[in-house]
């Protein structure tokens, strides 16, 4: 049984308090889950069901994938999906490699320049450079309207470096010393000894980067100008938040009748949420491991 025994000192169970707690938590969970249910159901509904429900549907009796077929058969949404997937994949790989390198370089005690580099990295948590100077730098580097502008400025996150470095520091030093005595170079030690033991932290940091790239909105708004280079977040903003009507031209759906606007909009929302929902369980199982809050004990 997972149930912990109730210690004697807690005194008798107070049933009104139990009911109250259960009610509060139930309402909170429903408040989180209902919007998702409503979006998924509406995206699966046909025109009559949407009309009948007066806008949004809570249960699609006759689910249809027409809206998904329409947005995924080419056109702006498909294009934006591909851009978002590409930026997320490349960005996560680049971020992980540079973060692992920096965290490992900063985790070997007493190496040359490591104190200074650590301080310089940590201090970035205290400030943000500001919108205008950031824009001018990206412009100066010739990255405006390039997908690289979605990756390079946010490539290394100091918080992730710290999480990874603490993990490396907590690793038994004997392992690394043993590898050194066997003649392994620093690089070989990292690849053969340290990384295989750090799968959990690499997974969590990688997922954090992936979620950040997938969700990126402001960097895209700031740096990407051509609509054909838009990631999904800008498509979502234009056609869902700003309610710009989405028609046959944007979808290249051909001669077939368009599914209802509401279904298309909710399908775009669902497509933006699904990848996060898919990787969430993998992220979630690490929360309890205390990986991220392990440093609090100070």
């Amino acid at each position: 049984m997972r149930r912990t025994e109730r210690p004697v000192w807690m005194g008798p169970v107070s049933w009104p308090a139990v009911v109250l707690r259960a009610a509060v938590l139930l309402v909170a969970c429903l408040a989180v889950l209902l919007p998702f249910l409503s979006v998924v159901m509406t995206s699966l509904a046909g025109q009559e069901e949407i009309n009948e429900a007066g806008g949004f549907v809570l249960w699609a009796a006759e689910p249809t994938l027409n809206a998904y077929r329409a947005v995924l058969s080419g056109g702006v949404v498909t294009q934006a999906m591909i851009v978002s997937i590409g930026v997320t994949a490349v960005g996560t790989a680049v971020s992980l490699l540079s973060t692992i390198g920096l965290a490992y370089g900063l985790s070997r005690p007493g190496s040359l320049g490591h104190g200074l580099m650590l301080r310089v990295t940590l201090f970035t948590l205290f400030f943000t450079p500001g919108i205008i100077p950031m824009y001018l730098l990206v412009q100066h580097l010739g990255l405006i309207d390039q997908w690289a502008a979605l990756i390079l400025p946010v490539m290394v996150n100091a918080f992730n470096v710290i999480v990874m470095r603490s993990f490396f520091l907590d690793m038994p030093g004997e392992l690394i010393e043993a590898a050194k005595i066997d003649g392994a170079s620093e690089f070989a030690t990292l690849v053969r000894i340290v990384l295989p033991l750090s799968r959990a932290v690499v997974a969590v940091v990688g997922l954090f980067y992936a979620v950040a790239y997938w969700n990126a909105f402001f960097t895209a708004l700031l740096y990407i100008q051509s609509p054909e280079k838009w990631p999904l977040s800008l498509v979502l903003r234009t056609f869902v938040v700003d309610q710009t009507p989405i028609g046959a031209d944007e979808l290249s759906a051909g001669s077939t009748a368009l599914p209802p606007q509401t279904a298309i909009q909710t399908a775009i929302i669902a497509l933006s949420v699904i990848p996060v929902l898919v990787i969430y369980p993998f992220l979630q199982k690490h929360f309890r491991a205390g990986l991220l809050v392990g440093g609090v004990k100070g």
Partner: protein
Amino acid sequence: MKPGLLVRKRSVEPRAPAPRPNDATTVSGHRRSRWRKDRVLIGLAAPGFLAVVLFNYVPLLGNVVAFQDFQPYLGVAGSQFIGFDNFDIIISGDAEFLNALRNTLVITFIQVVLVFPLPICLALLLNSLMNDRVKVLVQSVLYLPHFLSWVIVVALFQNMFGATGQFNSILAATGLPGVTIMGVPELFKAVITSQVIWKDTGWSAIIYLAALSRVDTNLYEAAALDRAGPWQRLWHVTLPAIRPVIILLLILKLGDALSVGFEQILLQQAPVGTSVSEVLDTYVYNNGIVGQNWGVAAAIGLVKGIVGVILVLAANRVAHVFGERGVYQR
């Protein structure tokens, strides 16, 4: 704000440089030999470190445009220096700027008073659950919205509270007149506050839960023996135990006082207008990037950044005065 800032204290102190057994000749600190020994490590760290410097410190140089009549076609090098003219808007109290400042401070105040205590209450509630399976399930559900972007959150809220949203369908079904909650200027601050609560209450509780899990249960037992009831145990045992974490997060929140929900607000300005929704960050964006008023926007961004750093350091100093640990120690 990410909980990771808490690790700063521990991480700043590098471990004592332990002499390695097999290179006793090099520890003495000859730079050349240290470089030869450590060049692989430095090479590994270099790409990430250069990115940190290039995209965090180099942009600070761009703040010179705050003192220029910046024209994009002339560039930073060719634009004329005009001293502090761009700061006139702040000094003379331009109406639009003051409006943005006022909205920012009001929203920060609402968030400190109404939003900040909620994760603490949630953590206390979750901590009181005896059944681990229920606890994990509730946590999993409530953490989820944190991982959605603001675009998605705003879209979901429109789905619920927009002109044709669920809420209006329910009103229509019961015969009541509909109301587009998300388009009413007077309700704007309530809407963004509820969005922040929906998105981040669960996730923010994680840090308090970690602190609560480390409270010594012997303390509760001793308190109970001394006839302390549940509320007295909460007040005299639990809250003092998590007080350092509460103060630390409050300091970080105050340091962020001038940055409120930039993406979130930018996405929802159109239907309600700028008089209720303009905050400092959107002011800088709308004037600088959209309005091409580079110098003034940069000046305001610069002042905002400096005030932000001062606020964190000052709040931390206050925490030290009251004998708390704060973000870092002296």
